């Protein structure tokens, strides 16, 4: 316990990087997810199919491969990003794909009868979407989005592999200097767990799938 207290100040800046990385991926990825969800319902299949393919790729490829691709692959085509930005962009890609699917499912879950009722009341298609479908979809989507954010928070640990000084890197470095692997890694684990469990409890979100 006393080693945990000694190590804590060393790990704290890492927690801060981890949180910043989570927020960056959400900030970049979520708006893209909303757009992709909208496009995946487009009437034209020339729009719909490519979007579905992108979403499936984003959900099907390991997060680690995506990070390597951004950090070690993109420089080859002259896109050079810092390790932190690479991690942010890579995680944002996965975020966009997952949130697009969550939002698409939320829209699809609105009962057909409610859309019919809106039509029978002579609301226009745009009004039908804005006044009837969207408000209901948003409600069903919030819990899985919070659940995803918690998974994303954990997923930022992958950035260790491209040397972003996040929580796990800090713990590993502290451990290699002091040889207190047990204390440093379990403390990092506890710091991940405390944030995850608190967020889960606060949101009451029980829908969690292992994703990244």
């Amino acid at each position, binding site marked *: 316990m006393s080693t945990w207290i000694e190590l804590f100040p060393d790990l704290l800046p890492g927690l801060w990087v981890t949180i910043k990385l989570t927020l960056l991926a959400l900030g970049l990825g979520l708006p893209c997810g909303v757009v992709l969800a909208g496009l995946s319902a487009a009437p034209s299949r020339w729009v719909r199919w490519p979007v579905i393919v992108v979403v*499936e*790729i984003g959900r*099907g*490829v*390991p*997060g*680690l*491969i*995506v990070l*390597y*691709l951004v950090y*070690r*692959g*993109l*420089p*080859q*085509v002259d896109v050079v990003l810092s390790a932190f930005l690479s991690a942010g962009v890579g995680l944002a890609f996965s975020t966009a794909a997952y949130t697009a699917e969550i939002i698409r499912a939320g829209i699809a879950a609105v009962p057909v009868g409610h859309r019919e009722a809106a039509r029978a009341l002579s609301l226009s298609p745009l009004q039908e979407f804005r006044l009837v479908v969207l408000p209901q979809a948003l409600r069903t989507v919030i819990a899985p989005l919070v659940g995803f954010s918690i998974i994303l928070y*954990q*997923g930022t*640990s*992958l950035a*260790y*592999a491209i040397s972003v000084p996040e929580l*796990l890197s800090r713990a*590993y470095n502290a*451990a290699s200097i002091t040889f207190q*692997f*047990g204390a440093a*890694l*379990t403390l*990092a*684990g506890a710091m*991940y*767990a405390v944030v*995850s*469990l608190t967020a*889960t409890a606060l949101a009451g979100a029980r829908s*969690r*799938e*292992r*994703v*990244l």
Partner: protein
Amino acid sequence: MTVMEHLQALAGGIGTTVTLTLAAFGVGAVAGFPLALARRSSQWWLRLPALAVIEVLRAIPPLVWLFIVFYVIGADFPLMTPFQAAVAGLGLIAAAYLAEIYRAGLDAVPDGQWEAASATGIGTLTTYRKVVLPQAALIVVPPAATYLIALLKDSAVASVVGTTDITFLAFQEARVTLEGFEVFVIAAALYLALSAPVALVARTADRLISRRLGL
């Protein structure tokens, strides 16, 4: 370097990735079962520890678990290979996720089935074995298959401690050839190709089950 040459370099990791994923899934499938039963128990001293174990396992990232198994627990087992550490680490997490999937499957069997079974006078164990499990087993197939895909993707973290899977070989190939872009795209395609048949099983099972159980 051509695409074929890159592919050949990565192909050696396919076996490791598949074995690792299936082994961890096997560990989770076995260990998850008692965990699910404890989680559903009416006894608080079984239910609460099970809940705590499941929640903690899922609240810590796979890579961190892997490090704890490899560097901390591994310190007492100097002969533990990275592959074994990965099976243990990912298997632990799989146990927690599969326990929750089992639990949902058991919960999905209607109370009426329990009532009907006890009305015939067969015991709890027989009810589980003959009535509840056969139904729950079907319900569990699609989410378990979906989880298997998630585990396949998670298995990539094993490369970080030196398991020579697809990701590990891709990392090396990229470093040697300096063609990271092509190499990681090929690696991504390999993972997608491996998960496609499982996804197909999940989808087909889902359709069969909805028809068969009239859900």
